């Protein structure tokens, strides 16, 4: 991918965002309404196949280009990126670890958006401590029978296929050796128990999923071998973190842009507030955070695309960019004064959306722990 092509892609998406997303985002978000029409447009754009290899009908974009797309869309409405983000992590697990037959069966349908879904890892009792999951799959002939509950699953209602992490051997030591990943397509025994209401990240469905004697054909076991599920789940996290970091960049930028615009038109004491030093200090910090976050994401994506180990880089990008989004959004609210607290403006949405990026895809507490561990590992005394 050369830069001219990347520019062409970002231009095309930019046009769509201005013409069809920006004018409608606030209303859909207020009603927490699933953006059906935008999803159809994202399908046509090829976004559901953005990082899927070209030989399976995807676009095969680098994570660097993909991160720019995610940041650009998040700058207008962050929720939209959730609809294809975890979907693409599921696809990446198939592309990386799946058997040839699994790739042929699933990837082209994922790429077209005909089949959409996400990741089903988290359970009511555990998120960070993934190895503590209790959803169980027991082999019976050519099938596995699954029982358990998953929660907070993005695209849980509108999606139809999920990368489902289960225990096939709950007694295994270490625990991860008993974990296995399946591609679970909705059917009898797999139901949505509820839609989860949330602070922000509206429009996209987050759901609790219940599995009761749900039968999955053994051919849907990712890679065909039990006990590798934890490895498969962790393998997608670097890309996942780059994604979330890119969303942070988008929201941080949106907050900055709104603040820069508003501070020039709002006047107090006879001058635009951008001429008051207190506001200038905020703008200066906000802009610097945006730039630093963007560079961290670019750096992590470059390492990822080069096939280098990048858990530390992706962790830094995710941690810093999500905090940048949160800090910039509250600063934008302050700069807007009372209007910042009003639902007539977008800044309160950024402030409700930003915390998700600090929690999802590995909490920021965990990111700092990962960074520190890598620091020690890479710099032995």
């Amino acid at each position: 991918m050369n830069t001219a092509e990347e520019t062409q892609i970002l231009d095309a998406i930019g046009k769509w965002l201005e013409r069809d997303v920006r004018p409608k985002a606030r209303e859909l978000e207020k009603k927490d309404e699933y953006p059906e029409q935008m999803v159809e447009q994202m399908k046509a754009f090829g976004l559901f196949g953005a990082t899927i290899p070209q030989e399976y009908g995807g676009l095969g974009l680098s994570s660097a280009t993909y991160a720019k797309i995610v940041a650009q869309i998040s700058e207008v409405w962050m929720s939209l990126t959730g609809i294809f983000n975890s979907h693409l992590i599921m696809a990446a697990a198939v592309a990386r670890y799946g058997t040839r037959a699994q790739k042929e069966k699933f990837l082209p349908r994922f790429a077209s958006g005909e089949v959409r879904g996400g990741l089903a890892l988290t359970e009511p009792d555990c998120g960070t401590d993934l190895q503590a999951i209790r959803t169980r799959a027991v082999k019976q002939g050519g099938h596995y029978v699954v029982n358990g509950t998953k929660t907070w699953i993005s695209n849980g209602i509108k999606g139809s296929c999920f990368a489902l992490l289960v225990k096939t051997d709950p007694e295994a030591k270490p625990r991860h050796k008993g974990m296995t990943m399946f591609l679970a397509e909705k059917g009898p025994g797999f139901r949505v128990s509820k839609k989860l209401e949330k602070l922000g990240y509206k429009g996209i469905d987050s759901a609790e999923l219940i599995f009761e004697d749900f039968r999955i054909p053994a051919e849907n076991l990712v890679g065909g071998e039990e006990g590798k599920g934890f490895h498969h789940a962790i393998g997608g996290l670097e890309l996942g973190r780059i994604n979330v970091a890119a969303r942070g960049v988008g929201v941080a930028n949106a907050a900055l842009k709104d603040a820069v615009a508003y501070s020039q038109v709002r006047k107090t004491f006879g001058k635009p507030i951008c001429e008051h030093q207190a506001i200038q200090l905020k703008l200066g910090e906000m802009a610097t955070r945006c730039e630093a976050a963007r560079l961290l994401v670019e750096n992590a994506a470059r390492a990822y695309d080069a096939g280098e180990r990048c858990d530390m880089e992706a962790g830094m990008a995710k941690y810093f960019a999500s905090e940048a989004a949160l800090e910039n959004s509250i600063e934008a609210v302050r700069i807007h004064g009372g209007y910042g607290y009003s639902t007539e403006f977008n800044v309160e949405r950024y402030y409700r959306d930003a915390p998700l990026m600090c929690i999802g895809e590995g909490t920021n507490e965990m990111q700092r722990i990962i960074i520190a561990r890598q620091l020690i590992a890479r710099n032995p005394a």
Partner: protein
Amino acid sequence: MKALVAVKRVIDYNVKVRVKADGTGVETANVKMSMNPFDEIAVEEAVRLKEAGVVTEIVAVSAGVQACQETLRTALAIGADRAILVETDAELQPLAVAKLLKALCEKESPQLVILGKQAIDDDANQTGQMLAALLGWPQATFASKVKVEDGKATVTREVDGGLETIALKLPAVVTTDLRLNEPRYVTLPNIMKAKKKSLENLKPDALGVDVKPRLATLKVVEPPKRKAGVKVPDAKALVEKLRNEAKVI
């Protein structure tokens, strides 16, 4: 039937254009460039005619610096079949472009040439008309509706008084107005496919055209700043000002 569509690379319509300090032109360094919006409408119309089974091949052409290739790639991504760039670093004026297009028409023999009615940079609104004159072909400018059937085009034009519908024998030149269509989005899969389409590179010399400017730009200046308006308390005061200050009633 072959259609030739001309596209120009211009400063993006969202960019706030700045005049160069020395008054020789406008700032183009590090400025976002895009396809002239009227040309996008032209490409879209050609693609629709192809989808309707009227046109069989669409050739997108552009004249200018090497970076015009990007504009042509966009045309290919919208649906043009192949592209030709007449590459030159020279400043191109409408007459030179019309001559280049004429040479390309002689080479390609299209039945229909579609251009934007004007480019949003110099707003000249001349190239289509000059091309028709040079070729001796009929022209329909400011098209808001185009129908092609049985070797003739029926075009509805946006004229001052309203709409005018005319019939033209093919081959003909059509220039597009804003309401002709709404161009589709360029999708990512089509951007990837466009990479594989042919893009031919020619020099003006190869077409035997002298592109030397005929017009000299004396000076480029910013439009005068508008003075702030005044608020009047009521209609009476407004009438009073219109009569005595503006002297328009």
